[in-house]
């Protein structure tokens, strides 16, 4: 009988340290399902960042490199250059990618480095306990924005749409934004990840999948409310879909 559903081989059968309702676990599962489908477990390497996903090496059943906060794309650049036949995943949160590591993210993308970034955007710093992130929405409260993010009076800046910013760069070939707040979006996000990984292995250029994810703990919401907030608050600002698709055969795949 054909096995149609099971635990991904590339994901260790262990309980994670992530909080109840956190999106990281679902995202880990999507990544490993795609790796299994591509038969790439033995040739996958993840660069895990400083932040909640520092734990990634405990869960992914393949090699990993842990780099300083924000330097993930610099490390991934070199790993992929040295091992071009490997699947290299640069896993970053919003603080890692869009605050401390903006330069590394922009320049790796601009060079067209052939790894895939999985950008988990939950609009907050998780590991350090709910500080304002570069993607925190206007008005959203954080421990360092106790009255809500105020871009004008308090000079806290505006939330950054990373994919739209990177889309102007010649090196980026595939930029898509998904979410893990409901089953339909989870399935759609998996398709984006697969397209990006396949493009990487064809050597097409820089690819990034941003995933809107929930952080019930630091949003001070229960898990059910938090998946609702992804939809009601985040999606109007961070529109889902393929922001840029310049992959070879992009036209053919459009019907999928």
């Amino acid at each position, binding site marked *: 009988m054909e096995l149609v559903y099971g635990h991904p081989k590339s994901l260790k059968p262990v309980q994670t340290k992530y909080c109840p309702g956190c999106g990281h676990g679902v995202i880990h599962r999507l990544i490993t399902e795609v790796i299994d489908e591509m038969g790439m477990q033995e040739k996958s390497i993840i660069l895990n960042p400083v932040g909640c996903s520092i734990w990634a090496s405990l869960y992914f059943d393949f090699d990993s490199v842990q780099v300083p906060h924000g330097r993930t794309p610099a490390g991934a650049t070199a790993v992929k250059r040295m*091992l071009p036949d490997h699947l290299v995943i640069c896993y970053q949160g919003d603080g890692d990618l869009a605050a401390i590591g903006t330069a590394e993210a922009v320049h790796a993308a601009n060079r067209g480095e052939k790894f895939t970034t999985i950008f988990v955007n939950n609009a907050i710093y998780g590991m350090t306990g709910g500080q304002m992130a570069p993607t925190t929405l206007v008005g959203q409260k954080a421990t360092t924005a106790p009255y809500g993010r105020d871009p004008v009076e308090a000079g806290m800046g505006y939330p950054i749409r990373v994919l739209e910013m990177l889309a102007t760069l010649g090196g980026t070939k595939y930029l898509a934004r998904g979410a893990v707040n409901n089953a339909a979006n989870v399935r759609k996000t998996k398709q984006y990840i697969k397209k990006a990984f396949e493009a990487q292995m064809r050597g097409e250029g820089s690819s990034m999948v941003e995933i809107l994810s929930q952080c019930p703990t630091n949003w001070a919401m229960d898990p059910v409310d938090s998946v609702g907030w992804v939809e009601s608050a985040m999606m109007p600002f961070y529109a889902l879909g393929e922001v840029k698709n310049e992959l070879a055969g992009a036209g053919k795949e459009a019907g999928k």
Partner: protein
Amino acid sequence: MAAEKRLMKGNEAMGEAAVRAGCDAYFGYPITPQNELTAYMAKHMIDHKRVFIQAESEVSAINMVYGAAATGARAMTSSSSPGVSLKQEGISYACGADVPMVIVNVARSGPGLGGISPAQGDYFQSTRGGGHGDYHHIVLAPKSVQEAADLTFEAFDLADEWRMPAMILADGMIGQMMEGVVLPEPKDPATRVAKPWAVGNKGKRTELNHVDSTQLVPENFEKALHVRYARYDEIKKTVVRWEEQNLEDADLILSAYGTSARVCLGAMQMARKLGLKVGLLRPITLWPFPEQRFGALAGKRFLVVEMSMGQMVEDVRLYTHGKSEVSFYGRCGGMIPTEEDVLAEIRRILKK
């Protein structure tokens, strides 16, 4: 066939030595006075079909070195003092994750943006672990273009053997001057140290490899640091290196490294012609420092000469255990002492 002697700038000689050592990947960012090294690598790494990237910053460059080295590649970066300050975060991570790499610092004057002339103000940063946390890495200090090439070549082996960064602490003088140099024969890749800990190419390996400096369980972390420091003790025994001349009868021992040691050599020869009993003790490894050699000479009189306000002099005082009278003569801000300056200081101390 006799080895070919070439006239080369120090920066280029270090680049060629790295190529011959089998450097697989070089990552750099422009900064004076080391730019010829990056430019040399840009051409020659590409010609050898190896990896060269001009990074967006020194911060990025050192983390590219870390990533490349994590795969088992021989990887290198070069910079000068302000740029090396930016690399310290990455160096701390590399030391914490036991990742070998080669870092060249063609030092200039500081602090701050400082100047672009040669200086030796980075001794503390290099030898004390310039980033956060408990660590050291190998530091090699060449005094000539020839030695810069030889030590760069050897630094790759030392880094691999001891699983740690090896730094060449040169200065703008070594980097910019031209001298005759005989380059080492290219290293046979088959003689490289195996790196079973590297990521990728899993093949039949059953364990996963994680290149990682994090450890959140204090009991485990303390144990891991003790293991690393036991390795440091081995390095102190086997890697330490120095050059000494005329110590037997010396009334005064000059001690200096790199460019200032070369000035001291000339000053020593001038002093000897005047009948002054002066010797020279030149550390070649700044970490590990020749602690025991200095300890054995405790009681002798020392004059430490540096192109700084006095940094290595603290180690000379430390390892002569308070038994030596240790004088210091330094120039800073990019100034280089002359042989005559040092001779005058020798005569003042010896009252002759």
